[in-house]
């Protein structure tokens, strides 16, 4: 009982949930204390990959996650450089995961934060994500798996942490080509040292525990194993308790920040995120953590997510408070189609599975 209480995934979940609320309380956008898709959209804007200045800011949290994961993996000798498994497929699934997140307006972590803050529109997202993960688990059971991972020379694993380190330099040096928006969500941010510290700790813990929102559901559906799921529950409870304590809990369906009431599209979008996450083994947050610990495939996925983050804004394949755009809806359907084609192609013969 005592050991289970201090399980590292539960601690990671609790810190992650609490971190979401604290960062939001200290200045990050409402209900968006930690959101990988929003942060990547901000990063893409800061790098001038899109021109929406209100969404352009170099979020320190992204840097903290990668460096935290890298530090923990190196310190515990878990920095293992692997890759070579269907890189272009992972790139495009990373892209589609961000499309799904943009149509819902948030990644799975933000979904938990929104639920914990009383935003009932996120219920459809939860159901969609669960169905997507369940489908993914069924596909895995049926023998779907991407190409085999292999060991790579160490230098490959250092590239993504170095990219994060470079962003850290940009954050402090503020070169002219990096855009820091002064209005809108870009202007809303917690103090940089606090963001960096919180995300570094979360990055360390997440590397140690392997916490993944979709992974928690996947393990539960696939092998009835609940360690990661306990972490997901802890994230929700951590965020809920702090939301109540800090007066950030507003129960309701209407008038919730950065939300819309097109529940069907929320459902489908998060179904896409859930399904894609299971195929490439990890939600957007987990991909960032894995990229920090030497997983080159995840680094490729992260660059796919960054491309997605730029294009969802540039091409308006996303949702606003008015609901999803036409192109957003089409992109979600295209993502689901891509997933179905992939699982059909990558299904090994039943004999091989046995």
């Amino acid at each position, binding site marked *: 009982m005592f050991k289970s209480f201090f399980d590292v995934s539960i601690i990671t979940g609790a810190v992650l949930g609490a971190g979401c609320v604290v960062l939001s309380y200290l200045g990050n*956008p*409402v*209900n*968006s204390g930690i*959101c990988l898709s*929003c942060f990547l*959209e901000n990063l893409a804007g800061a790098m001038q990959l899109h021109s929406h200045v*209100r*969404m352009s800011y170099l979020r320190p949290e992204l840097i903290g996650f990668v460096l935290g994961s890298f530090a923990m993996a190196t310190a515990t000798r878990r920095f293992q450089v692997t890759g070579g498994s269907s890189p272009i497929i992972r790139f495009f699934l990373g892209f589609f995961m961000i499309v799904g997140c943009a149509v819902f*307006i*948030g990644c799975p972590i933000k979904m938990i934060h929104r639920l914990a803050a009383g935003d009932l529109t996120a219920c459809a997202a939860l159901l969609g994500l669960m169905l997507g993960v369940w489908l993914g688990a069924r596909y895995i059971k049926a023998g779907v798996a991407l190409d085999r991972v292999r060991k790579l020379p160490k230098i490959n694993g250092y590239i993504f942490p170095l990219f994060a380190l470079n962003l850290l330099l940009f954050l402090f*040096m*503020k*070169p*002219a080509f990096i*855009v*820091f*928006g*002064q*209005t*809108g*969500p870009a*202007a*809303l941010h917690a103090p940089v040292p606090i963001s960096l510290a919180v995300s570094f700790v979360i990055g360390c813990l997440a590397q140690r525990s392997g916490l993944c929102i979709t992974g928690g559901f996947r393990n539960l559906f696939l092998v009835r194993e609940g360690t990661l799921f306990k972490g997901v529950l802890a994230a929700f409870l951590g965020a809920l308790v702090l939301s109540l304590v800090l007066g950030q809990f507003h129960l309701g369906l*209407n*008038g*919730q*920040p*950065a*939300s*819309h*009431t097109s529940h069907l599209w929320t459902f489908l979008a998060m179904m896409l995120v859930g399904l894609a996450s299971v195929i490439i083994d990890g939600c957007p947050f987990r991909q960032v953590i894995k990229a920090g610990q030497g997983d080159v495939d995840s680094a490729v996925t992260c660059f796919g997510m960054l491309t997605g983050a730029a294009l969802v804004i540039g091409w308006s394949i996303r949702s*606003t*408070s*008015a609901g999803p755009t036409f192109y957003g809806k089409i992109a979600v359907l295209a993502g689901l189609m891509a997933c179905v084609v992939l699982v059909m192609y990558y299904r090994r013969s039943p004999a091989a599975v046995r």
Partner: protein
Amino acid sequence: MANHMENEGVDWFFRVNTAVLIVLVAVTAGMIVQHELELKADSSHGSPGINTLQKRYEEQLAKKAWLYKDVLYLEKKGDFDQAVSKVLKILKDHPDDAYGLVLLGRLYSQQGQIVKSVRSYRRAVELDPDYVDKTTPLYIGDEIMKLISSARGKLNREKKLKPEDKQIQTAINDIYYLQRRIAGGCE
């Protein structure tokens, strides 16, 4: 012997490349430091600062106040009908002018035309989200929330009486949209 030569070759290869790397790092670092020092001397680089942005907003507001000076005068006098027709006339030439739509929303609200008022505010916010952004001097979230809190009950009552009325449903949706935008978030 061959192995020894190979090792010697590797050593030579490594030494030269390490030296090249050190030179490259030193030159790059030196250039960055020099550039940073130059920029420090000239503070006008990079993203516009808060003061520049504030100035831009002030200029923008002054320009709009000039364009709509007659409307503002009529509003002050309480002649809302005339003011509305004047705004509509200006908006014909500047259909995407969020400031004009905000004025229109305010005038409709004073006339008691809630549905039209809410629609105008929504269009204004869609065109220029700065009107619901607390970090800008354009912020009118409190003004809109005041209208919303008085309009919500009335519209819900009307919806019960006329459930098929699409205009009322649209106005309710507009209210929810405005509420979501004022609530903030990452959008």
